[in-house]
């Protein structure tokens, strides 16, 4: 995009941790809801209320840190970051400053500088002429992940974020939904002429609400900064807001205008001590990561790279697949893959339901595929059965039984259907005997109609031939 300059990008990603309760009190950690219904003396900053660290946050933060290969600090410190803002009840944010919970990791080719725990702020609701404060989100647990400044293009930044999202979702620490705000990203970007030059003056981009806006804002910023530099100007260090409507970044405040946060250790919270045995225990909860799982799906299950990629994109889908595969057997892996990525995914997408809310149990999809593979159910029947499974959550056996949909394979029954059709259609028999073998299809169709689609078409075909031969 800008061959004249070397681009340097660093990201600061906030991730809302999935826990039952908030970071420092026992209020439910759920976003949204009627304003100010999930609050207590602690998260509203009442006098005399004290923060108590939620141990579950430690588990989730360490899990996240291990997932991106960070080193865990056995002693970390909570600090107060002080500035006045109405969404922050105490006018300081409890965060980690000098000693974070984890440091020095990497994801893909990108270095991670640090990962620390901090509390979220509340939300301001601006109504005509006045502003209201909702503290439901206040003190919700966040981790902030800071990359090294070594990302070299907007595309690479987007890839890093998509990768991070997938990994953290796999680890189960967060749903990482940028639109819902459970993953938020600020980007620092600077330009310089030569590899040997020191890093240029950076701008910090905020209000990036999707991966796409991260990439677009960085693209825009490269243009803006390179124009300034090419015309001999100087970039000033500032925070800039991405404006989704005008597709531009706009200056918000310069470095001189920024707050002095007056960090100091929070005297209400003792140092956070993490033993090696705890770290080792948490590590056992790290699931197989997407790349490794994809490779295993190829080698162990004989799936194509593409199918394996689709199935391992989300942990829930991959788990579902393996669960179902246990029922239908390894040999049916391809058929199962196709059912899962076409039929199931199609239905879920159409209804906007996530895999975790899939009404069809993995074992049920597995047995449906097994029934198909054993020839008990035809492809067309299977689709009807699946529709019913999706609607009711019943097992395929149950539906087959109840609707009497089971494929008819018994020789006697098929014979009976075929004999009736031959008897009712002497003209077709005659045509067939005259050598017009094409009419067999019409006769099969009649049998299928008589058997309400249940007769095994392959067997009907054979039986009809055999019976007609006898007429000769």
């Amino acid at each position, binding site marked *: 995009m800008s061959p004249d300059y070397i681009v340097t990008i660093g990201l600061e990603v906030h991730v809302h941790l999935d826990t039952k309760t908030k970071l420092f009190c026992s209020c439910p950690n759920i976003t949204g809801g009627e304003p100010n219904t999930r609050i207590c003396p602690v998260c509203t900053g009442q006098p005399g209320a004290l923060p*108590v660290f939620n141990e579950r946050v430690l588990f989730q933060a360490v899990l996240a840190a291990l997932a991106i290969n960070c080193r865990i600090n056995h002693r970390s410190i909570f600090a107060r970051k002080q500035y006045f803002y109405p969404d922050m009840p105490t006018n*300081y944010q409890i965060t980690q400053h000098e000693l974070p919970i984890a440091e020095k990791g990497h994801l893909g080719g990108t270095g991670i500088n640090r990962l620390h725990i901090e509390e979220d702020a509340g939300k301001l609701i601006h109504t005509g002429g006045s502003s209201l404060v909702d503290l439901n989100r206040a003190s919700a647990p966040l981790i902030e992940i800071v990359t090294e400044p070594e990302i070299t293009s907007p595309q690479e930044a987007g890839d890093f974020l998509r990768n991070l999202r997938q990994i953290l979702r796999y680890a189960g620490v967060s749903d990482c939904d940028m639109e819902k705000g459970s993953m938020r990203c600020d980007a620092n970007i600077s330009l310089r002429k030569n590899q040997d030059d020191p890093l240029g003056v950076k701008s910090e981009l905020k209000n990036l609400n999707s991966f796409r806006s991260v990439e677009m804002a960085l693209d825009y910023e490269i243009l803006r900064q390179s124009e300034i530099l090419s015309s001999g100007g100087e970039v000033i260090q500032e925070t800039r807001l991405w404006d989704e409507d005008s597709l531009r970044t706009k200056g918000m405040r310069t470095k001189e205008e920024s707050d*002095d946060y*007056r960090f100091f250790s929070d005297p*209400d919270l003792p140092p956070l001590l993490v033993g090696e045995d705890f770290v080792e225990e948490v590590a056992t909860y790290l699931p197989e990561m997407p790349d490794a799982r994809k490779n295993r799906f190829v080698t162990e299950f004989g799936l194509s790279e593409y199918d394996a990629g689709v199935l391992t994109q989300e942990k829930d889908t991959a788990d579902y697949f393996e669960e179902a595969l246990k029922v239908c057997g390894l040999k049916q892996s391809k058929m199962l893959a196709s059912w899962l990525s076409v039929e199931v995914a199609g239905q879920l997408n159409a209804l906007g339901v996530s895999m975790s809310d899939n009404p069809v149990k993995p074992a049920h999809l597995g047995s449906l595929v097994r029934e198909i593979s054993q020839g008990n159910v035809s492809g067309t029947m299977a689709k009807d059965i699946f529709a019913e499974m999706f609607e009711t959550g019943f097992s395929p056996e149950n539906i087959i039984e109840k609707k009497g949909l089971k494929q008819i394979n018994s020789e006697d029954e098929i014979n009976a259907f075929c004999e009736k059709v031959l008897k009712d259609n002497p003209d077709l028999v005659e045509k067939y005997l005259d050598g017009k073998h094409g009419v067999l299809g019409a006769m099969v169709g009649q049998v299928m109609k008589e058997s309400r689609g249940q007769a095994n078409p392959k067997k009907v075909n054979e039986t009809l031939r055999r019976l007609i031969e006898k007429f000769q």
Partner: protein
Amino acid sequence: MIKKILKKVNSDGAFSLVKQVSAQVLESQEKYNSYITLTLDRASKRAQEIDSLLNAGKNPGPLAGIPVALKDNLLYSGEKMTCGSKILENYFSPYTGTAVEKLEEAGAIVIGKTNMDEFAMGSSGETSYFGPTKNPLHPDRVPGGSSSGSAAAVASGDVPIALGSDTGGSVRQPASFCGVCGLRPTYGRISRYGLSALASSIDQIGVLASSVEDTALVYSLISGHDPKDSTSLNEKGYELSDSIEEGVKGLKIGIPKEYMGETLHSEIRERILEISNKLVSAGAEVKEISLPSLEQALATYYIIAPAEISSNLARYDGVRYGFRAPEAQTLEEMYIESRTQGFGPEVKRRILLGTSILSSGNYESYYLKALKVRSMIKKEFEKIFSSIDLIFSPTTPTPPFKFGEVKDPMEMSMADSYTIPSSLAGLPAMSVPVGSIEKNLPVGAQLIGGTFSEPTIFRCARFMEKIYES
């Protein structure tokens, strides 16, 4: 005193006692302005509940029917809590703090919230937005501070016990000025949950009482681990025993020469030496020791405390609760005007000082350095307590002074110079009344011990109390 009142409750009932106490409280409020809020109606209802328990043959607890007063920086659900400040003039506590909850569970009856220096910043009670409290022993003199109303309420006989809070000496110094007992326990022994924070790393709830025995009883009831306070020590609370009557035989006691210097009132020095002789006669070993960090301790305190104050008081901004300047048009005006009008001069002075101390450029040269000195002071005390049991000194260098007599904030801070060092070290200390000097002014003796040494402190305090019991 508590034993006597318990008997009265048993014979006449808590309701009749509260009625009597209410009359006295209203009278002393008129005379000394000890309270900011009275909770007498609620107290009557509580008394009736306690009486019906007693009548049903049930035990309402070791403090059944005992009237208590709470410093107005302690949260007591449904009642006003002002911290002696305009900014919280109309703030109602949404919950009850742990120590107060424990007192109520023991059967105590809260009769009011006591006056105090604004946000516990002051040593005379004079910085209260609700006017100064008078010393019941000498109404022309200050009761000390910042727990001025709690000390006065005990001194005037309204209540046998009151809770206060001690950061630099705010329980011990007013106890000394009002001639009552004042205990500041080991940091972390009494939960701070429900105590409005001043300097969180130094604040402790303390007990003011009319006797050592009562102090020990209340301490046993409210100490112990609280999961709601992460700095509370993970130890069982103090258990009451008869050890307070064991005497001082065999105790090793040190008197720091730095506490006996030029600035000490001569009659107070004599009183300390007099007690020292009695300790020796009773079999204690008394020697002169040195606490060289006394001077650095004051400087360190006046860096660490304001730094934490500036942060802890940031929440009083007019957004969610408390005073909001009505004329403010913008967010910034609301912040500035609410805080400018809501806080008094001493509070503003310390907030500005603390804000400056934590600013980049000052943080390392002041704050970090002060933290280092603080740990040095802790080590100095540790070393001392490896060879002696208790430090014995006056609680204050002077007897209670007259209203308006001490105007310079630096001079005022000298009133806490003997109490601050042990506060910084997180050690337990107690002021016990040891008679009076010229003009019948009360004197307090301070006992400082190592971590968890409250039982030894009580023992020695009881010995001294007995000498001057009239």
